[in-house]
């Protein structure tokens, strides 16, 4: 009884041009015909085009993603199995977390693009049955300082994105407790907006996105469907060009209020036994949620578009199936329990409709009343997109710096602290409600955010990191450093890393150099995750990030989550008391390649970026955690962009009160620029009470970690650094004003 889907009178004819416009290659079209045993109609062509876009199918990146470690004793739900992975945190509790990009929508409409990105990632988390507890965000823009031609546009994008994230997160009541922001020419015209959400749940509460149970009704709940974001997944899988701006989809507008209701209603529903399967409608909306649930369930799903709640009149099946309206979910309901769904959604004043049924023929069947308008084998649509092994061509290896340009060291520190990538991000996180849910133990501004999840009585630490300059110069090493830095930030907060989510932001994969960067970065991340024993629980791939000048710097953002065993171990990066000893764990370092010193002061992105040795790195973290457990560490701050000088300055100024310090490196034999600003890895600056200083140094050395006392927190008004007979002094108040005020003063310029 294989009925064939009809073509509708208004459907355009399927010509090679129409096929090409859908981003489907002639080979792919062949494959579609083979799967169907006939030619697709227009609706079906649209369905294939979104499901087989990079955004939904990972057809270019899948072979690479297989290189990530994804298993481990704590993994309850593996990467790729469901909407988000789940990790065991003990006592029967689990955490679900994931990162997602909304780069292209944010380039077009920064406020709504970023807002709907937040909405999307939150849905991914509560779809798992988890209550979302905090968000992070990782952002990249073109330069907002200097006199480049795009500075104003970049500021507009930056302020719009931050306001959009604030709008959605604040309204829905999930604190945004951390993140990162970098500014670099390579992101001009193509900002990166990566958002992260983490939720908690009991092991037995894990919900599945499978259409189980033949005969079970399929419910649509949440906002009505409009023509928003038609084919957005396909749009995200192309380069942004002037032309693509012409045929861009209607902008999706987020409604955080509706999502708050949807979140509460779904979590309430999931406490009942009415749900057989649940899936959010994100990219590719109704299309993706129906065929993926059917594929996971090994079943078929039939829906009737007449029953779908709609916001606009006259929508075609093509439009309904490809709409990316926000705040919608698909729920497979246990037959006979429909009334429970109705009760709960009426209580929350949300639209709901029974739109279809689970059947046993493996088909995704879309009807309008009695007429079948699409009929596609669900598994092949969802899971059998073509997979491509793209050509790679390595970029030339980075060349070592020949000579290091010199400068006035005193001024250099001020310039680095004023650089928007290094300056305090208080202008950003002040706009985010980072305290709602009453669990933020370490507010934004330290190395990692720390949150106590009261439900589970667990203290989690979380950070996102990626130095894309390093990745541009040496993608593999850059990615390795990203993982190491994330783990180091967690160690500095007193945490043990648990797992990783990542967001791979790259250029067009058809260009062999870009694809090579992707491969190198993935392999670098995989090495890092193996070293720190942090499985990858999921993530997102965003390709085609380009502007007319070329691809963005490769940006494999790492989101890492760790756990703090005892409240007493929570540690922050600011100096606490005058008299405390300042200790450097790790080497003095000497690697200047890819440094912010070169970039900020000389506009140069070059050299060999710092290397990381994971054995040493791990030993450093264990040592630091050992000292923290002994209760002697008053502050710990990792050494990253801007080197030791920036680390020391931040420790002086980033606390509740500013504190001066006297630092003396004695004889190092290093050029002062190198000593102060090199970005060698595997280094942390800690402060301890003077009585503990010698023992702390001895403990570290015993563990094979270079350690030395480099000075004292003296309080007072200045940071003084002596080395090799020279002395530099900075008024702490100036450093503080520069660091805290830089972004805000740039953003208030016309």
């Amino acid at each position: 009884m294989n009925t064939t889907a009809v073509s509708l009178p208004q459907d355009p004819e399927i010509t090679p041009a129409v096929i090409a416009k859908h981003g489907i290659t002639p080979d792919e079209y062949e494959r579609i015909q083979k799967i169907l045993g006939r030619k697709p109609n227009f609706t079906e062509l649209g369905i294939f085009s979104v499901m087989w876009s990079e955004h939904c199918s990972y057809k270019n990146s899948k072979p690479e993603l297989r290189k990530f470690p994804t298993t481990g004793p704590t993994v309850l739900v593996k990467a790729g199995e469901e909407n988000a992975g789940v990790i065991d945190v003990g006592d029967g509790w689990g955490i679900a977390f994931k990162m997602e990009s909304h780069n292209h929508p944010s380039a077009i409409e920064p406020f709504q693009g970023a807002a709907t990105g937040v909405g999307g990632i939150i849905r991914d988390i509560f779809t798992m049955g988890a209550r979302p507890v905090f968000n992070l965000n990782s952002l990249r823009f073109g330069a907002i300082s200097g006199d480049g031609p795009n500075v104003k546009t970049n500021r507009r994008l930056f302020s719009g994105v931050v306001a959009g994230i604030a709008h959605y997160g604040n309204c829905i009541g999930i604190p945004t407790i951390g993140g990162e922001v970098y500014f670099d020419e390579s992101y001009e015209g193509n900002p990166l907006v990566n958002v992260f959400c983490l939720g908690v749940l009991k092991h037995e509460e894990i919900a599945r996105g499978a259409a189980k149970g033949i005969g079970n009704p399929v419910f649509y709940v949440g906002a009505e469907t409009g023509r928003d974001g038609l084919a957005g997944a396909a749009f995200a899988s192309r380069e942004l060009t002037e032309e693509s701006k012409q045929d861009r989809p209607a902008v999706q507008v987020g409604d955080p209020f509706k999502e708050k209701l949807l979140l509460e209603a779904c979590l309430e529903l999931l406490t009942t036994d009415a749900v057989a399967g649940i899936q959010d409608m994100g990219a590719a909306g109704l299309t993706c949620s129906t065929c993926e649930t059917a594929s996971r369930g090994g079943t078929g799903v039939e829906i009737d578009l007449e029953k779908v709640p709609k916001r606009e009149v006259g929508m075609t099946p093509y439009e309904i199936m490809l709409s990316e309206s926000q705040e919608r979910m698909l729920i497979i309901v246990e037959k006979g329990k429909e009334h429970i769904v109705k009760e709960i959604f009426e209580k929350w004043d949300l639209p709901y409709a029974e739109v279809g049924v689970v059947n046993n023929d493996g088909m995704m069947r879309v009807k309008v009343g009695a007429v079948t308008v699409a009929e596609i084998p669900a598994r092949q649509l969802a899971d059998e997109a073509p997979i491509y092994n793209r050509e790679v061509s390595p970029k030339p290896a980075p060349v070592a710096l020949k000579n290091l340009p010199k400068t006035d060291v005193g001024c250099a520190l001020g310039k680095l602290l004023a650089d928007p990538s290094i300056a305090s991000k208080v202008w950003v996180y002040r706009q985010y409600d980072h305290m709602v849910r009453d669990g933020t133990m370490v507010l934004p501004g330290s190395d990692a955010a720390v949150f106590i999840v009261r439900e589970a009585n667990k203290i989690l630490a979380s950070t996102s990191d990626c130095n894309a300059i390093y990745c541009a110069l040496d993608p593999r090493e850059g990615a390795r450093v990203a993982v190491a830095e994330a783990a180091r930030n967690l160690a500095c907060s007193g945490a043990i890393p648990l797992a990783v989510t990542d967001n791979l932001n790259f250029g067009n994969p058809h260009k062999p150099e870009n694809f090579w960067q992707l491969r190198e970065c993935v392999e670098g991340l995989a090495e890092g995750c193996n070293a720190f024993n942090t499985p990858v629980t999921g993530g997102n791939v965003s390709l085609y990030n380009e502007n007319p000048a070329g691809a963005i710097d490769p940006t494999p953002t790492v989101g890492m989550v760790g756990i703090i065993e005892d409240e007493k171990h929570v540690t922050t990066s600011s100096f606490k008391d005058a008299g405390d000893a300042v200790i450097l764990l790790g080497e003095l370092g000497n690697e200047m390649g890819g440094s912010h010193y070169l970039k900020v002061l000389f506009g140069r992105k070059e050299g060999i970026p710092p290397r990381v040795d994971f054995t040493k790195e791990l030993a450093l973290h264990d040592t630091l955690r050992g000292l923290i457990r002994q209760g002697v560490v008053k502050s710990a701050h990792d050494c990253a962009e801007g080197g030791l000088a920036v680390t020391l300055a931040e420790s002086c100024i980033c606390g509740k009160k500013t504190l001066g310090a006297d630092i003396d490196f004695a004889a190092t034999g290093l050029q002062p620029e190198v000593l102060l600003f090199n970005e060698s890895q595997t280094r942390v600056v800690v402060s301890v009470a003077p009585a503990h200083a010698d023992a702390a140094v001895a403990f570290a050395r015993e563990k094979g970690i270079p350690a030395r006392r480099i000075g004292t927190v003296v309080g007072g008004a200045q940071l003084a650094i002596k080395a090799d007979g020279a002395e530099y002094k900075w008024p702490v108040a100036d450093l503080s004003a520069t660091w805290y005020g830089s972004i805000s003063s740039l953003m208030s310029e016309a």
Partner: protein
Amino acid sequence: MKAAVIRFPGSNCDQDCHYALQRVFGISTDYVWHKDSSLKGYDLVVLPGGFSYGDYLRCGAIARFSPIMKAVTDYANAGGLLIGICNGFQVLTESRLLPGALVRNRSLHFICEHRFLRVGATDNPFLNLAQPGQVLNIPIAHGEGNYTADQATLEELNANRQILVRYCDAKGTVSEAANPNGSLNNIAGICNAGRNVFGLMPHPERACEARLGSEDGNVIFQSILKYLKN
């Protein structure tokens, strides 16, 4: 002793308030749904923070018409203790249970940070354990906390000692520099003439545990407890 935390669609500090009342201060606390219509048997009612009805139109404007608000108004008019925090304060001004209005922050930005508050009058159920002039460290998190009222209202508030907390610096100085949002006279919270209804923009429920950065919110809840016990 029993407290109620009202839940509007879009409330998002309801759980935080519940936690503070029940777990930190040991007050038996219920959630009351906005579609309910009775507040019988409660000694304290809390309108929590959040974005009731998405804060569409004006903050608190739509919540004011929730079924429960009739009961809230009756309860307040009968002298019941009522506290509105952040969005709750906005609901109270929209409902005319407190005078004035809350408009967009001067900077137009949402602001979340710890702030210092100077205690004004203490002859009320909400601050009876505080000292006049005492400085409290309590976070704010709002986009529309800029309190405004006409001159006559302001004079009345002053004359009746209804201004309970003002934004100040760490030393307690009330100055323009210490005003985060443009509020008239640095007003952060006021009570009604009957002294049983208190609205404030800062979040005392976020300042009840040292591990979260401040315990200065306790004085408000402990004052309420003391008042109710007497």
